[in-house]
């Protein structure tokens, strides 16, 4: 093999700078890594992301897993993908179409190649392209000849090269083959001038001995291969982005949610109790939080979602910052208990990381289909505030805000995230901890004489007191039966019933007065408003900015507070001739806005388990604009 000699002789002397080849400057690149579930694509993608972040680009990623369970090796069902988009300019999405695809086997190729921008680069692992594998993937015959015409097809025997790089190591051949993704990572790092220090540091922390040596060696070998092979005539440079000054890190939505809960624990100075039952894609929040017992984060893996939320309400009653997290099917099971939290007016946070349904659906895919369920899924009138996070980093602030709101208004608060932002990552400007508001919770004080009134209210917020067990003089009983105003005793009286319903509604509606004015991206009034919520923010922002570049008078509002709506929302909506609302659902927010404001909102609904492509949005904007 001609490759082996070169690599064999050079792999110890590789550095992070290129010497022999020209570089070409690009504004942005999108790369998709694709392979079998066992090929380590998520890890490869993540490491490339870390290096890219450190190189100062703006970036956005999108991992796209197969179903939760391992599919047979080499089948379409088992393909795992990770896309990263990085740029010297501001970007908002992982890009509609990748410029580069790395396909580790025929199934990965077949599942992804049509997404690649025409003329883009397609890198394949030739070692995995044999007749049997092609058949497994569903190809009839050799797909490569045809692809050579459409794409810049780069054929690299990753498996062979990796084996050669690791000759002499005391590793099983299985362990050796497992390293091949790092060879590919090395190649990519060379191609885009990424440093590899972070990856090597990470490897050093993760592995020891021969395994460490193997991974590092193949990573460097890949880099060297890139530099020397004739397959790549040049390398590329994507200059750092002009980003607001600050300290940044990569973060996924789930990690940010977990850290937001930790921030609540610190900023509100009270221990956190997280009761949860594992479910895709929410489990990682439980995993992440359970690593931080030294912060006073208590996690409880309950026997089911009902126990998860019930324990959470119990913890809230006992005075903890209590939170529960789940995804659609699990969230729905919590609704009865959440009704009790409404009746007993206890503060807690319930997070729903939405996934594609209905029923078990497509658990690893994304959707925004649970908005109506979280708002209206409890029997009777049972209002709960809802806040939706819009980007991975925003999850941090959303979790923190939710807890502040819960405690201030003595109410459960629902946080919506989704599978897309849960697993995607973006560079996140680390907030200045000293600048975060620090507050202390005011529990009801012990009393010596007189009857304690658990349903007395703060005249401004209408919150009732948080009176926790262990406090002398405040002994009282709460429950799900209709409560007497003030005393909280059981009451069956008609007027009181109506009054309590009304009071609870007023309390939640009253939160609107504490919300900031709506931020409008673009002019305050005009031809077309694109309004959205949740994880579609990146795509919508990109599309709106594109449309404005194309000369259209388009503004954008991205709603964060879905219950109550901000007080100025009606006016904002009515300031535009047309309103477009793209949702990854059959139009949940649209229903609410149309009902409340009687505005003829146009819906752009997509329910494919996938986020919006920018082009889908720009097309819809243009069409509606010109209609």
């Amino acid at each position, binding site marked *: 093999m001609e490759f082996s000699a070169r690599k064999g002789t050079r792999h110890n002397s590789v550095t992070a700078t290129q010497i022999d080849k020209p570089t070409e400057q690009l504004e942005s690149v999108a790369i998709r890594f694709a392979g079998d579930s066992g090929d380590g694509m998520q890890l490869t993608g993540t490491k490339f992301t870390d290096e890219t*972040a450190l190189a100062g680009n703006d970036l956005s990623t999108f991992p796209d897993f197969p179903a939760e369970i391992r599919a047979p090796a080499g089948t379409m069902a088992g393909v795992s993908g990770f896309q990263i988009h990085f740029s010297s300019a501001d970007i908002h999405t992982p890009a509609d179409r990748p410029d580069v695809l790395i396909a580790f086997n025929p199934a990965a190729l077949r599942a992804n190649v049509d997404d690649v921008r025409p003329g883009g680069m397609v890198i394949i692992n030739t070692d995995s392209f044999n007749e049997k594998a092609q058949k497994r993937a569903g190809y009839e015959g050799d797909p490569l000849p045809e692809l050579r015409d459409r794409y810049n097809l780069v054929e690299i025997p990753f498996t062979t090269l990796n084996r050669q790089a690791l000759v002499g190591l005391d590793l099983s051949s299985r362990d050796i083959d497992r390293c091949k993704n790092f060879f590919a990572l090395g190649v990519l790092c060379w191609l885009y001038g990424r440093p590899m220090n972070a990856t090597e540091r990470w490897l050093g922390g993760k592995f020891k001995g021969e395994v460490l040596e193997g991974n590092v060696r193949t990573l460097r070998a890949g880099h060297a291969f890139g530099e020397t092979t004739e397959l790549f005539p040049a390398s590329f440079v994507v200059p750092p982005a002009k980003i607001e000054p600050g300290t940044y890190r990569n973060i996924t939505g789930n990690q940010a949610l977990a850290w937001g809960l930790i921030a609540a624990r610190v900023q509100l100075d009270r221990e956190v109790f997280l009761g949860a039952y594992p479910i895709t894609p929410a489990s990682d929040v439980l995993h992440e939080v359970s690593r931080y017992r030294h*912060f006073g*984060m208590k996690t409880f893996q309950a026997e089911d979602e009902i126990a998860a939320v019930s324990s959470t309400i119990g913890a809230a009653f006992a005075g903890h910052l209590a939170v529960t997290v789940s995804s659609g099917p699990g969230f729905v099971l919590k609704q009865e208990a959440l009704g009790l939290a409404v009746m007993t007016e206890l503060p807690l946070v319930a997070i729903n990381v939405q996934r594609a349904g209905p029923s078990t659906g497509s658990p690893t895919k994304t959707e925004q289909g649970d908005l109506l369920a979280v708002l209206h899924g409890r029997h009777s009138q049972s209002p709960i505030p809802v806040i939706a996070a819009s980007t991975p980093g925003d999850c941090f602030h959303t979790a923190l805000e939710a807890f502040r709101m819960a405690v201030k208004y003595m109410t459960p608060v629902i946080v919506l995230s989704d599978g897309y932002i849960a697993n995607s990552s973006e560079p996140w400007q680390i907030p200045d*901890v000293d600048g975060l508001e620090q507050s202390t919770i005011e529990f009801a004080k012990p009393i010596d004489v007189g009857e304690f009134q658990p349903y007395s209210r703060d005249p401004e917020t209408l919150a009732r007191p948080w009176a926790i067990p262990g406090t002398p003089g*405040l002994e009282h009983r709460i429950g799900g039966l209709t409560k007497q105003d003030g005393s909280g005793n059981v009451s069956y009286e008609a007027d009181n019933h109506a009054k309590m319903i009304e009071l609870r509604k007023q309390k939640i509606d009253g939160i609107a007065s504490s919300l900031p004015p709506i931020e409008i991206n673009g002019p305050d009034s005009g031809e077309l408003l694109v309004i959205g919520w949740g994880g579609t923010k990146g795509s919508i922002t990109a599309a709106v900015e594109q449309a404005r570049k194309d000369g259209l008078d388009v503004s954008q509002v991205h709603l964060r507070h879905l219950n109550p709506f901000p007080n100025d929302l009606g006016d904002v909506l009515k300031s535009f001739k047309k309103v477009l609302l793209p949702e990854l659902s059959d139009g949940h927010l649209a229903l609410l806005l149309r009902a409340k404001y009687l505005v003829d909102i146009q819906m752009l609904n997509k329910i494919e388990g996938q986020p919006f492509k920018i082009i889908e949005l720009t097309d819809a904007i243009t069409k509606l604009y010109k209609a």
Partner: protein
Amino acid sequence: MAAEPAVKASRKDWVSDQDVRWCPGCGDYSILANVQRVMPELGVPRENVVFVSGIGCSSRFPYYMNTYGFHTIHGRAPAFATGIKASQPELSVWIVTGDGDGLSIGGNHLLHTIRRNINTQILLFNNKIYGLTKGQYSPTSDLGTKTKSSPQGAIDHPIDPISFALGCGATFVARTIDVDAKHMQQVLKRAHEHKGTAFVEILQNCPVFNDGIWDELQDRKTRAEASLVLEHGQPLVFGGPGKRKGIVFNDGIPSVIDLADEDDPIARGVVVHDEKAPAASYAGVLATLQRPDFPMPVGVLRAVDKATYEDELQKQVDSAIDERGKGDLKELLHSGDTWTI
């Protein structure tokens, strides 16, 4: 008698101002009275006591206790209690549930609370009926019980709460009966003393929908033969003078032998009651003693020590702090790879 007034005086402190809403003659009244009588003797201030319940006649209980109380939703009380204990492990938390609330809709939470050994007292009022919803059969109803929902008789084999609790790994299991005030108070005290989940089945009469199901055990005439009063270290003897009988086990299978009044039961092979038997096996055999073939064991069947969930949770918090220091938010946010622009 002499001490009565003093006890009565302090019992009042535990009585809430709410009207008690059970049918006349309901066994729940006597259970309430006994709990209210026992509480002052436990040495826990009222503000540190929480009663948690589900839904059912029995689950009205918290309203009548002048303590913290949470009347939650149907079947889930143990899960609420778990959250309370995880947050404030030092509270004395009592769960009140019924045969429907605890064993029908709530069976799963009972199972997991028991196996986790959450340090709470679980009082399951067993009237073998759904009282609150006006008399459907319950998971403990006898085969053939005719109710509104089983007009031709129930066909579900009943579950035995004690066997179930033992199958879930219960560390403390006891049985008592609504009408026997002294016995119940003893059992309640023992339950309170136990560190871990103390599961107590309280046989309770529902005069409206299932009257008389426990008569054999209440009636002076039949009581001695129908019940087996357990005492640690004492042989399993019942029946009373002239009708004395004992329980022997053969390869795990219990049977009854007749004893003369002058017999030494132990010499005759009668099993000696051992609450602390290391394996649940012994208590498991005891639990299979059921009417009419056997007397019904009342008292503490099992009381063994095991770590509680909330203690272990707190230990993890403490050891994490020991090892890693108290968490620092700024440090966390800046951990791993960061870059500054």
